[in-house]
């Protein structure tokens, strides 16, 4: 039984690939190396199957420390390589039995990889999340009820409670509408964009609502313009706060060409 496998990080054009890869260390601290075929180079590393084989992955992906360290190491290789040209990142935990299988992949999917590289050339991915503050968005609709003072009949209490629920629904509706508009507005400054499911609120430790978890493929030359658009939205809409991340390697877009 084999004890070592080949972890794949990304695919790039062969030209200049060696200098992009040289000196990098991967998920198990191994030196990253090149597997080249038909003008394409896969950045790979040899990893132990006890840790990165099927059983190991299944076990380790549930371990938050391991997952965090491995995700960061995988991303560090890709991000470093992305600084020097277009790149197609592989999903984390794609492992082959040997280099020959990687070469076969490059040959079999050659045209898809080339198309994907072209799609992301001179472009970067930027993430934008919109967080909504329900109280600001519900704006004042609740204040009428507060004026009722300490003495309140059961009916008044129920009415106030009902108004608060309506206000909350209304705030959510407004927030959702803002999210649609913000996404449309940002798309005007991007080549492509997509809305992803919002992260679990408990995971992000926020009390406000994440109403947009968007990610955008932006021409490198338009990144400043995109940032300005994000800042403008953030400033202009009360109750909505935007969070910008990136530039990222094109994780969310390179796959569209190859996976289809």
């Amino acid at each position, binding site marked *: 039984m084999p004890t070592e*496998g080949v972890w794949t990080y990304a*695919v790039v054009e062969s030209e200049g690939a060696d200098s992009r890869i040289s000196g990098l260390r991967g998920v198990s601290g191994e030196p990253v190396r090149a597997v080249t075929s038909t003008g394409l180079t896969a950045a790979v590393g040899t990893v132990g199957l006890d840790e990165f084989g*099927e059983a190991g*992955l*299944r076990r380790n*992906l*549930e371990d*938050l*420390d391991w*997952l*965090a360290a491995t*995700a*960061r190491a*995988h*991303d*560090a290789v890709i*991000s*470093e390589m992305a*600084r020097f040209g277009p790149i*197609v*990142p*592989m*999903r*984390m*935990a*794609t*492992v*082959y*039995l040997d280099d020959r*299988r990687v070469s076969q992949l490059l040959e079999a*999917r050659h045209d898809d990889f080339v198309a*994907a590289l072209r799609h992301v050339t001179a472009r970067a991915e930027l*993430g934008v999340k919109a967080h909504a503050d329900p109280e600001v968005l519900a704006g004042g609709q609740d204040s009428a009820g507060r004026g009722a003072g300490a003495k309140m009949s059961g009916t008044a209490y129920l009415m106030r409670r009902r108004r608060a629920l309506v206000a909350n629904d209304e705030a959510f509706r407004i927030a959702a509408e803002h999210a649609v508009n913000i996404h449309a507005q940002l798309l005007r400054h991007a080549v492509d964009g997509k809305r*992803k499911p919002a*992260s*679990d609120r*408990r*995971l*992000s*430790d*926020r009390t406000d609502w994440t109403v947009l*978890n968007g990610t955008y493929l932006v021409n490198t030359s338009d990144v400043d313009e995109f*940032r300005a658009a*994000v*800042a403008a939205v*953030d*400033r202009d809409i009360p109750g909505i*706060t*935007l*969070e*910008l*991340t*990136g*530039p*990222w390697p094109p*994780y*969310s877009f*390179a*796959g569209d060409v190859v*996976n289809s």
Partner: protein
Amino acid sequence: MTEVLPADNNREVALVDLLDRVLAGGVVISGDITLSIADVDLVVISLRTLVSSVGALMDEVGIESPR
């Protein structure tokens, strides 16, 4: 607006944003060993359940929460 600065060697990226990309993005081609896509999705889902049920763990292990 909060902004996470551009990529560099020491960038501090919220784990949740990173996982959103390295586990849900990237090119998906089954390797020889990789869990099937459905399996990976399952793993991510169970991971999310795990993480969300122990929110405090995030601080404990020193993982940055998104700002």
